């Protein structure tokens, strides 16, 4: 059901992990729907994305799109990262099944959310960047056995 590229990124996801004291961090999606993506960005003084890490709770496509999105923004300028759309992520993965396209949308949103956090923290404006939609609710993670 998935392309070889998707399976490759699922099996060997790039840039999984966390960054301590990130320049920006964004979390999108919610556990109720079964997809949460979190992106950490390390951005240098020239607004170049030095490092990027992700963590994802979700299906195979969600993991693969997160992985691909991090690859596409790594080493790029903040402005270039803005051009990484869900379509670009999809294409880079040689396509996604129609029901999974929303995963690539989530990847784009996660990057934007992390950039927004960076822009807020460093007091700059990034052209074309809008405030991300609601973050995941903390209370939804409280469930315990």
């Amino acid at each position: 059901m998935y392309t070889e590229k998707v399976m490759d990124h699922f099996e060997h996801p790039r840039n999984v992990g966390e960054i301590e004291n990130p320049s920006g961090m964004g979390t999108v999606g919610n556990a109720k729907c079964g997809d949460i993506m979190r992106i950490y960005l390390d951005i240098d003084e020239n607004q170049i994305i030095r490092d990027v890490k992700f963590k994802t709770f979700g299906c195979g496509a969600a993991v693969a799109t997160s992985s691909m999105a991090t690859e596409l923004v790594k080493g790029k300028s903040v402005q270039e990262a803005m051009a990484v759309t869900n379509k670009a992520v999809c294409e880079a993965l040689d396509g996604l099944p129609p029901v999974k396209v929303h995963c690539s949308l989530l990847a784009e949103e996660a990057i934007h959310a992390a950039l927004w956090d960076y822009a807020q923290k460093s007091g700059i404006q990034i052209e074309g960047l809008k405030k991300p939609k609601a973050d995941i609710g903390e209370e939804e993670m409280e469930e315990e056995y």
Partner: protein
Amino acid sequence: MNEKKLIYLDNAATTKVKPEVVEAMLPYFTEYYGNPSSVYEFSEESRKGITHAREVIANALGAKTNEIYFTGCGTESDNWALKATAEAYKEKGNHIITTKIEHHAILHSCEWLEKHGVEVTYLDVDENGRISLEELEQAIRPETILISIMFANNEIGTIEPVKEIGQIARKHGILFHTDAVQAFGHEPINVDEYNIDMLSASGHKINAPKGVGFLYIRTGVKIRSFIHGGAQERKRRGGTENVAQIVGMGRAVELAMESLEQRKAKETELRDYLMEKVMSTVPYTRINGDRKNRLANNINFAFQFIEGESLLIMLDMAGICGSSGSACTSGSLDPSHVLLAIGLPHEIAHGSLRLTLSEENTKEEMDYVAETIKNVVERLRSMSPLYEDFMKKNSCVR
């Protein structure tokens, strides 16, 4: 390339056709291909094949042969039972009682009936998936014509209190239908002992091929045809009989009934072994479904902080076939209605894993599966933002 390992743990989805079943079927394709409705002697073998299968199935249920009606699948049987009952008994009433954890063959038939003037009560279940007999009794109205409650649940394996349900139905003079697709051939069922008036079953869950099932209809239940056509199945189910498959199902039932107790014992042992092994090695895990009233071959885990489809793909890479109630595998945004009905929060329902065993599985396989699950869950958790947050929060509290 090495031959890929295959550990098949999805027997609730479908089963392997047994070689004995294939063997029994083969002559009905090329030798005895006559139409059972034809008059000439050549068709006699086709008729005999069907008659024998009907006898085997009737015996298995403690029913009469003229109470077994062959259908195309369990879903057809469910549709027939519900829709034809609503039609035949509309003078008496328009109310059906079922549960929130039925298979979609029942739930979607009920939804359709609701659009056609039938009222349906969907009973809640407890945290183990069992209905409350008091609630069932309270739901009964003067216009209630049918109680349809599954024998055993396909996802969590919970067996309903069928005998007590049958008694209640009988006491109130209401018909009782049970979807026994997961239970028939796996649990002993006697339609008289349980006061069952209609029972749906499917061949491919018990090592017969896909595409054949039956509906048991107690003598005196006056439902009519659902598939209109010729005079087959005592004029109640049109369409030329699927002779080879019916023969195959008969043989499969024969084998299933012969081995029922020993198979149950073996599956129970393997099931409990794997459940305990995983529970003791994977933290933040729960078992869904009733621990006691449970199908011998059903395991249903929920692993916190991870998502089911990812889990399935990783298990598949290790050669293990399972299934999940996550939204991604259901084709909608919501996880399984069964897991929600037993009270699981969405995010935990997304991390469910159903493994359904067969007698062919081994203890060695269970060891490998437990080890693989442990590794895969660890790996997915290491990628999960939910797990990250949980661990950080917990380390702060301590």
